[in-house]
């Protein structure tokens, strides 16, 4: 466990926060798709550390960024962090994404953008990121922050308030013929749609899953997802799984 000072906080669109922390040891080892457990400061009231995907790394500065929506008490406390305050982090944890092949298609729905930005930034070879949300204010990561070398970005909202109008799957379908493999993170319904497209068009697919956790290291068995051979642990068998190995329930 490492004590990590906050170096920058940015409150983004309504209810979204980006926190950057100094964590040199953690940053040295982390790769895309992994997560950290963030321990709460008022530990007697909030017993459990919060699992958050690594959103971005600056390996030279030894800093990592977390992007999250304020959804409950833990994320509210975290969004209230001030620069210089020190938070205890455990990580990097879990099994992340495999290395991106050329012609990778990255698909993010809502907060699912968090691990995919780290993944998208891991290479400069041609790749596409489809980033969708219900409406513009739900695009937690400002699309103008996603200008990365070699990355084709397609932004979509269901109400058309930003980017193309439609849902993520509508955008994915026409891209499949020129795609090597899919990498997705987002709401379960979106993941189910992506997985069924990948099966229909015989493309390899990986999904990053979210589940409530207590330990984050594979001990407490609290964060299971059903698989073909019984339950798997989201924290230590995942959070990234080959799509064919898990059964997604909404």
């Amino acid at each position: 466990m490492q004590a990590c000072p906050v170096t920058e906080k940015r409150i983004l669109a309504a209810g979204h926060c980006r926190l950057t922390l100094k964590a040199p040891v953690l940053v040295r080892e982390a790769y895309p798709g992994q997560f950290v457990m963030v321990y709460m400061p008022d530990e007697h009231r909030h017993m459990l550390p919060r699992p958050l995907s690594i959103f971005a790394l600056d390996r030279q500065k030894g800093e990592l960024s977390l992007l999250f929506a304020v959804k409950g008490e833990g994320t509210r406390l975290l969004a209230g962090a001030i620069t210089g305050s020190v938070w205890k982090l455990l990580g990097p944890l879990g099994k992340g994404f495999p290395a991106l092949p050329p012609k990778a298609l990255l698909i993010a729905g809502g907060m699912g953008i968090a691990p995919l930005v780290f993944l998208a930034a891991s290479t400069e070879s041609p790749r596409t990121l489809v980033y969708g949300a219900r409406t513009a204010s739900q695009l937690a990561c400002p699309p103008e922050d996603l200008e990365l070398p070699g990355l084709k970005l397609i932004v979509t909202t269901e109400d058309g308030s930003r980017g193309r109008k439609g849902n993520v799957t509508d955008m994915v379908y026409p891209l499949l013929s020129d795609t090597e493999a899919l990498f997705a993170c987002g709401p379960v319904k979106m993941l189910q749609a992506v997985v069924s497209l990948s099966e229909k068009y015989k493309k390899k697919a990986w999904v990053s899953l979210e589940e409530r956790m207590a330990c984050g290291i594979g001990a407490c068995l609290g964060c299971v997802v059903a698989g073909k051979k019984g339950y798997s642990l989201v924290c230590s068998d995942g959070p990234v799984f080959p799509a064919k190995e898990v059964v997604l329930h909404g």
Partner: protein
Amino acid sequence: MAEPGLKVNLGGIELATPILAASGPFAYGHQYRELIDFKNLGGLIAKGVSLEPWPGNPPPRLAETPAGLLNAIGLQNPGLTYFLENELPLLKNYSPRLIVNIVGCTVDEYAVVASGLSSEGGVDGLEINISCPNIKAGGLAFGTDPALTYEVVSAVRRQTTLPLLVKLSPNVTSITDIARAAEEAGADALSLINTLSGMLIDIEEKRPLLGNIFGGLSGPAVLPVALKMVWQVAEAVSIPILGMGGITSAEDAIQFILAGARAVAVGTGIFYNPNLPGLIKEGIIDYMIRHDFSTPGQIEGLARKGAE
């Protein structure tokens, strides 16, 4: 003054410190090897082992509550054979004293698991989880009925010469009746409390939050309940007590010992601070120095003497 000794004897098990890792959160310990110093623990209670593998409950299995944790893991475990072949050999290497928790759906299952664990070296004691539903009694938990408690504890007693702990459920009308039944059936010590039964509802989805609907509540929220039950049971039996329920500090642990516990166990508390055993050890030593105690045994039940 020299540092006070922390040794205690829990029903025949010599412990280097009166601090144990409770059954469940620690699993079989491996995951915590880099996070905690096992030397601070007197013992580790391995997560419940059943005869056959148990798959556990559907997700979600966890929810945080104010100062608490609601869980319905469902006693997921790989079964006796896997445990003996794959987990026990590793556990022997680093566990201070090893107590294995056993679970079952029938009296026979408990007995077979107890027998299997007793025939292997490296196990220092058994802890019977009597909160499991008894399939032959219509799903009534063994631990809610003195006669069923007596039946399952005596069946296990006949299979093992190892020190035997019985873990009591707080979800009963009279915990002292259950405690006496366990003692009469041959228990060497009692562990209490297990989690308090509870539930939560997701108001947006309009359905229970846990996949299993009901779960067990642990964490600081349950501490006063646990402490009271340790107090009551200490009055009712003469065998030692392993106290647990929401311990997150040395002060919490000392309260349990003052109420009559011989030793304490931490569970949920390690989720927020894996170094909790070390913290408790330091705090107990400091308390013993300040109050001039040379062994934890001198603290045991002391608050009761003042109240009598």
